[in-house]
């Protein structure tokens, strides 16, 4: 199995993780994790529950400081930086269990993420001078565009916690985009969505990648979504990478099947496949 990433035409890597290790006391949650993202990639990260996928996200976004290893964003070392610094350098994320600002309006949720690009100082804000007025209007305009993209434009005054689940998910992605990232990490964006909503989401992910020129890494349990949109998939189990490849390669990979279904499952599924082919 090819554990190396395809490196298309020597393009510059946008995000690179080398030998990441995360040790929680006696538990090695992630061991020797490698990842290369090239601009405009759409990669998936899958694995059974507890495989360490979210831990990888938390290391990349600075929530955890890796025990060993290095993370580079555009060939700049970002290991051990604070989460807000990493966000400002261009990595945005969403959360597995939605983390909106629950008591604020939809618009404010997105405007907060745009804060670092506000372009006026605190004293401009306190004095409410002309500069503030112009910049604040520009900021609002920009964030409303994000709401437009996610079809939330009629909801801008709604309190975030009152939104239906699907819209909360979309709002979280909109908010992540408002911080103007180069790399977007989506942690189970389709969790709790019905098939119809998942299709919408897949479309949306493709769309935002084109429109905002993003590189996307996503964790997902819904195989329909992962297999449908990801170009490369990395499979983790017990903190280790067990496979990496295109969706087709992953589906037939023995290690992957056994990780999900238990030992012996690969042989069994191979038998089924033959049987089906013979019919």
């Amino acid at each position: 199995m090819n554990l190396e990433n395809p490196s298309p035409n020597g393009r510059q890597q946008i995000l690179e993780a080398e030998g990441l290790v995360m040790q929680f006391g006696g538990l090695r949650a992630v061991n020797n994790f490698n990842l290369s993202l090239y601009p405009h990639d759409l990669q998936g990260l899958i694995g059974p529950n507890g495989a360490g996928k979210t831990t990888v996200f938390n290391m990349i976004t600075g929530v955890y400081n890796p025990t060993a290893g290095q993370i580079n964003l555009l060939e700049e070392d970002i290991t051990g930086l604070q989460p807000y610094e990493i966000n400002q350098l261009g990595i945005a994320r969403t959360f597995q269990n939605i983390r909106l600002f629950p008591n604020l309006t939809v618009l404010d949720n997105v405007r907060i993420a745009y804060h670092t690009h506000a372009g006026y100082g605190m004293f401009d804000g306190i004095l409410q001078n002309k500069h503030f007025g112009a910049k604040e209007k520009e900021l609002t305009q920009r964030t409303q565009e994000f709401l437009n993209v996610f079809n939330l434009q009629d909801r801008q005054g709604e309190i975030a916690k009152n939104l239906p689940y699907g819209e909360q998910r979309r709002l979280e992605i909109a908010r992540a985009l408002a911080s103007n990232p180069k790399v977007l990490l989506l942690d189970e964006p389709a969790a709790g969505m019905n098939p119809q909503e998942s299709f919408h989401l897949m479309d949306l992910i493709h769309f935002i990648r084109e429109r905002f020129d993003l590189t996307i890494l996503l964790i997902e349990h819904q195989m329909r979504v992962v297999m449908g949109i990801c170009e490369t998939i990395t499979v983790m189990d017990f903190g280790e990478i067990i496979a990496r490849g295109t969706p087709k390669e992953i589906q037939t990979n023995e290690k992957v099947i056994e990780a999900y279904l238990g030992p012996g499952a690969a042989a069994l599924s191979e038998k089924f496949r033959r049987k089906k082919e013979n019919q």
Partner: protein
Amino acid sequence: MKKIPRDKLIFFGGALLIFAVVQILISTGILNDFWSTIIRLGAVYAIASLGLNLIYGFNGQFSLGQWGFYAIGAYTAADVTYRWTNQGSALGMVVILSVVLFSGLAILLLRKLLSRIRGLDALSAFAIYFIAVLGMSIAGIYLGVMITPAVNGLLSALPANVAMTIVYLISILLGGLVAAEISFLFGLPVLTLGSDYFGIATLGLTIIVKVLLDNSDTLLGFEEMKGARGMIGIPKVSTWFWAFLFLFLVVLIMRNLLHSSYGRAIVSVREDEIAAKAMGIDVGNYKTLAFVLGSMFAGVGGAIYAHINGFLHPNTFNFIKSFDPMIIIVLGGLGSMTGTLVTSFVWIIVLEGLLRIYLPNGFETWRYVAYPIILLLVMLLRPKGLFGDYELPYLRQVLPPMYASHKPIVPENLIEIETLPEESLSPSSPTKASGSQEATK
């Protein structure tokens, strides 16, 4: 000429009206000295409580240190004006001003420098700041003592009441700034604590301040503060005009700040710290900002308070009293400026005014039974406070109109995909792996 929005007009007009009515009542003697004191005290409480609301209601940091900063502001300002009126010397003002400016400058410079250092822990940062502020303070004291005679001459050349007003205003500013700088230093290590622990630590600050003030003449060496005997002889220059003006300024500053991107960043910390960090908000920075600003308001409030009665006693700044602003903001509604404003005045007028007068002799202590019961009832019946998150129209956030084109920008192929049969999207899976994997979830 630009048209002034209606809300703004009503708010400013209403404020002017309230000011004028109270001023007329005081001038004509309908409100006697007692009630005029009560009203001014209400304004002072409102300023301090608004500061706490910024810290707790908007930023989510449970702080019991508000009363400590209130005391710091009060004694700082009192010292400045006391020296001017009783000793005819601007020594207090000049020295404190130069110390505050020097250490403020040091703090601002260090912030620029230290922000470049990666992974500097809070205690080392505190040590660096502390040493710098200490050094600058000593330099400030020497410089202040040196230029005091010149300032004395300058001020005595002015008419007495003008000089007094200048000294008074500077003393209020200094009360606020000293509280702000101390809160910055105190907040550096303490703000890294979680919310409850932060509350305990700030309660500690209030107690430290009270004990230091009890011994201000011996431990600190400020003889005019007279320690536990209480400081007398402070000029009573906090008129309703000044109290109201500062309250109005505080309300405006807070309102404008909260309606800007910086205010939203402050509120985001309360809502979800982890999400705020992930969205590029420097959480530590905005906690500090809210804490320093809120404490500065407390200092300003204290400075005005010092000049109402002309008498300060450490017992006024007892830590039991530090719960007053906390109770006021919880009663009024966390995160509601209107609630804080109204509750502050009602609190003072009822507790210090009405009940003190109308309860029969010897029953004053029953006030402290009455108000916990009121608090209990409010918490049971209206858990979000009397005003919830209601705001006056001008203080309320208005939803901006949709500037962007209303037409939703949706991917064009969205409709096509919806109509596609399911099989065409799910990859042909020879092993049925995808199906069985989902089944295990």
